[in-house]
């Protein structure tokens, strides 16, 4: 019997009916991970022993009377930014290579309360600084559809682990596209929550005012189930909102739903076939009853400029704690305190972290703060207001999650135009803290060479909602997936030869 591509509700039924135990299911997925990971490198750490002991606890719970929590006994993976007590948490960086947290992040606590089973920690760009997972200290993760290509990033390991059937779902985080883009490139569904919907406590910080922990799953339905569990105000994170998170799973038609198509999100320079797939998807939404409305978001072009100031400023600040004093990598060469700092940090951080620390330090320097950071925050306010205005006219916005399908490893930097457009597609909504989904919507041929994947490579449709408007994007996503089966396509099994 195969379990790797079952949805959560199907796994729930099998566990509840005792067709399989959590230990068996965990062994099943661990076996897949152990088989596929040498090729894909989606996992930094596999926690076999902890997982099996959690699975045994889940089985005891299932075997005792009463209802089981939705995720009880179901394996999952977490991006290696989520702190897990007793399990190494590296941020895919050298500086935290040996770091074992003394505490669990809030999301992990919630999943443990469900008795879900953590099977491993997934790879990412170092400290989530990137969108290809190639800057990981542990080497790149490969795209399960074509192992010569990137999975996207920074949550590339998580998206790949779901796409390859190594886990039923995975935790990811997004700061500026890090859930949507890898979900798109790996052909899985991804949810980037409203900023403040899911607690950041215990998630290693990138840029505090943008970071949104979320998830990758087999379907929007699975993501809605996860949203109901992961969301909610957290007394340990003052930026979480006290909002009710009880989302409907019922599929409704889309009559009366107004779907905005921002013209700035369908620009020249993106891959033509990608644009076609996304336009076809919008037609599908129309067929389901939605009304398509072209909308204008003229401030879109400022998004990446604002991001280029705000994100490094917060990153530089957040990375200050990695000083070689209390935990993490410490140089063996220091002769005095200053050298402990200088050497531990220059030996421990990767190039991208250093670049961002330098930029961030610069923009916060005395005399530059007003010209850069303060001004960027003002422009950010314009972007937020522009979205708020548009959402008076439409319920959701749709766009490509990425301007291109997965590119070849090592080539992400070769086409700066893709990078520029990718920023346009994801960053403004991140700056505004908006919720979004990425759902598979077809396949396209890559522009850089051939791919062994018969249908081509996955394309993702993103659905952006207003602040706290998760239900709206879920409704559209559920309706879309009830009418299409792109989310049920899986990569050809990698042979272990």
């Amino acid at each position, binding site marked *: 019997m195969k379990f790797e591509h079952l949805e959560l509700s199907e796994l729930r039924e099998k566990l509840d009916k005792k067709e399989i135990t959590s230990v068996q299911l965990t062994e099943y997925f661990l076996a897949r991970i152990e088989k596929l990971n040498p090729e894909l490198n989606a996992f930094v750490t596999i926690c076999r022993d902890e997982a099996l002991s959690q699975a045994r606890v889940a089985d005891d719970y299932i075997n005792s009377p009463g209802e089981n929590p939705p995720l009880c006994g179901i394996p999952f993976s977490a991006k290696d930014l989520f702190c897990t007590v007793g399990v190494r948490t590296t941020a895919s960086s050298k500086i935290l290579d040996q770091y074992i947290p003394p505490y669990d992040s809030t999301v992990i606590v919630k999943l443990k309360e469900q008795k879900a089973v953590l099977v491993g920690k997934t790879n990412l760009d170092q400290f989530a600084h990137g969108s290809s997972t190639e800057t990981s200290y542990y080497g790149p993760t490969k795209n399960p559809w074509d192992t010569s290509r990137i999975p996207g990033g920074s949550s590339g390991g998580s998206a790949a682990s779901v796409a390859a059937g190594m886990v039923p779902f995975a935790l990811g985080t997004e700061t500026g596209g890090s859930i949507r883009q890898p979900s798109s490139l790996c052909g899985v569904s991804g949810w980037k929550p409203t900023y403040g919907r899911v607690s950041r406590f215990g998630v290693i910080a990138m840029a505090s005012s943008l970071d949104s922990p979320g998830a990758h799953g087999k379907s929007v339905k699975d993501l809605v189930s996860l949203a109901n569990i992961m969301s909610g105000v957290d007394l340990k994170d003052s930026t979480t909102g006290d909002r009710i998170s009880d989302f409907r799973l019922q599929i409704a038609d889309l009559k009366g739903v107004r779907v905005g198509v921002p013209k700035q999100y369908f620009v020249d320079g993106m891959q033509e076939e990608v644009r076609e797939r996304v336009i076809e998807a919008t037609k599908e939404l129309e067929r389901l009853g939605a009304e398509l409305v072209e909308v204008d978001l003229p401030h879109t072009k400022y998004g990446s400029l604002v991001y280029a100031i705000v994100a490094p400023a917060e990153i530089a600040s957040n990375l200050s*704690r990695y000083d070689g004093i209390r935990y993490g990598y410490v140089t063996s060469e220091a002769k005095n305190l200053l050298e402990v700092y200088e050497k531990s940090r220059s030996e421990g951080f990767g190039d991208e972290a250093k670049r961002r620390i330098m930029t961030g330090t610069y923009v916060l320097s005395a005399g530059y703060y007003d010209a850069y950071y303060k001004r960027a925050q003002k422009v950010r306010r314009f972007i937020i207001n522009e979205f708020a205005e548009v959402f008076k006219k439409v319920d959701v916005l749709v766009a490509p999650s990425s301007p291109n399908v997965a590119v070849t490893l090592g080539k992400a930097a070769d086409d700066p135009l893709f990078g520029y457009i990718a920023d346009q597609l994801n960053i403004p909504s991140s700056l505004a803290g908006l919720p979004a989904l990425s759902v598979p919507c077809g396949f396209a041929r890559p522009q850089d060479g051939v791919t062994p994947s018969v249908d081509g490579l996955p394309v993702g449709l993103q659905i952006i909602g207003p602040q706290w408007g998760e239900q709206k994007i879920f409704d559209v996503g559920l309706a879309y997936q009830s009418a299409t089966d792109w989310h049920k396509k899986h990569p050809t099994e990698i042979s272990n030869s």
Partner: protein
Amino acid sequence: MENAEYKPVIGLEVHIQLKTKSKMFGMAPNKLDMTEPNVNIDEVVTAQPGSLPVANKEAIRLAAKMGLALNCTIDEWSKFDRKHYFYPDLPKGYQISQLDQPIAKEGWLEITKSDGAVKKIAIQRAHLEEDAGKNIHPDGLPYSLVDYNRAGTPLLEIVTHPCIESAEEARKYLEELQRIARYVGASDADMEKGSMRCEPSISVRLPGEVGLPPYKCEVKNINSFKFVEQAIKYEIERQTEMRKEGLVPKQVTMGWNEKLNQTVEQRSKEEANDYRYLPEPDLPPLQFTSEYIEELRGELPELPAAKRKRFREEYGLPDADIENLINWKELTYYFENVVSELDAWILSAPAELSGKTDKRGKLIKSVANWCLQDFSAMLNVEHKNPDESLVTPENLAELVKLIDDGKISSSAAKQVFRAMYERGGDPSEIVGDLGLEQVSDEGAIASVIDVVIANNEKAVTDYKAGLEKSFGFLVGQAMKELKGKGNPNLVNELLRNKLK
């Protein structure tokens, strides 16, 4: 008088540790006086990856109350900022502080100088921040240690305008600030224990110089009011000498050296940090409603200045007594409870007594003396507050009455009080138990005096010959016979009469 033209310009930065259950930005306990290092810590205190700050409501409350007590404005909005620098005792690589929207702004505090002059010291701002840990450098070892017990302790930094003009003014300001912090219940504000720290900035203005001098010297590492005063005096002298010679002192941070009794240069301000302030993205801004502010205002106790004024009017005590009482908030409560017991008694006493205000004044002075002398001394030994002792206000009032009525001598009263302090109980009963009643029976005293006169012929003769000393001897003999319990006034009076 040329010297007087060189005017000191002094501003004070004071940090007080707020008395809260938990730390400024997390749930770890806020306990000082820990003997074991790194006990009051958790993932937030030690800045583990992923940990986030949550602002302590109680600390915010105490800070706003202090602001109100210092006559400051509390704006509707306040926010936190990150102040970046690297040091091992600073776990996050930044301190969460407040840059441009402090919790309290523009207030004042009034001091009375020793010459009686009253001055308002203008306060620029008071803001919340977190304390750092402590670096420890073991003697002769090639490493340092860090103790994070203190890290994250809530601090209120109170900054004056540069309007202080002498060491005395600085000291008076600090003393009053300490009293206010204690009255509000915000802090123990103890300089020796570090729960109150003061960093004066000092410069000296040239005769005729307009505006602030082009430099200032900050002095750190001062742990008592006395040293603040000494350090400021030292700096004023040093800088005045330099300015007289036409020199501008370097803008430096000085440290107070207790052994040398002088300030010593610590580091030059030229290497000062750029703190790269960043609005704290992990903490939303604080909003204060006017209802909340009024609620806090309603919770403020009577503050030292008001109490000082009222005590002067209501009790007519000497200023020194009032000052000493005011310094101990709990003792003022106790004192007033004793006085109200006595007042109840005076009111119910015969008309001629209740009308006599000098009688009330005498009793009140006696209560103040007991509070400030024997009682304070005993409480201090045990580090207790008055309400934690066994001596109830009723019992102390009763004791004061017994003395006033002549029922016990003042030396016997001291014994009785000690017994009241040690075991508790009604002083009349203790007097009885210990057999300390004063003998005021004229007949009994007269017969003792007769015996004394008969047995001490020489002294009697000497006294009659004009040797006053012998009278004292005879009183002593009589008191000895009376086992120390004779009413001394009566003994004196009767003896004089008999020897006429």
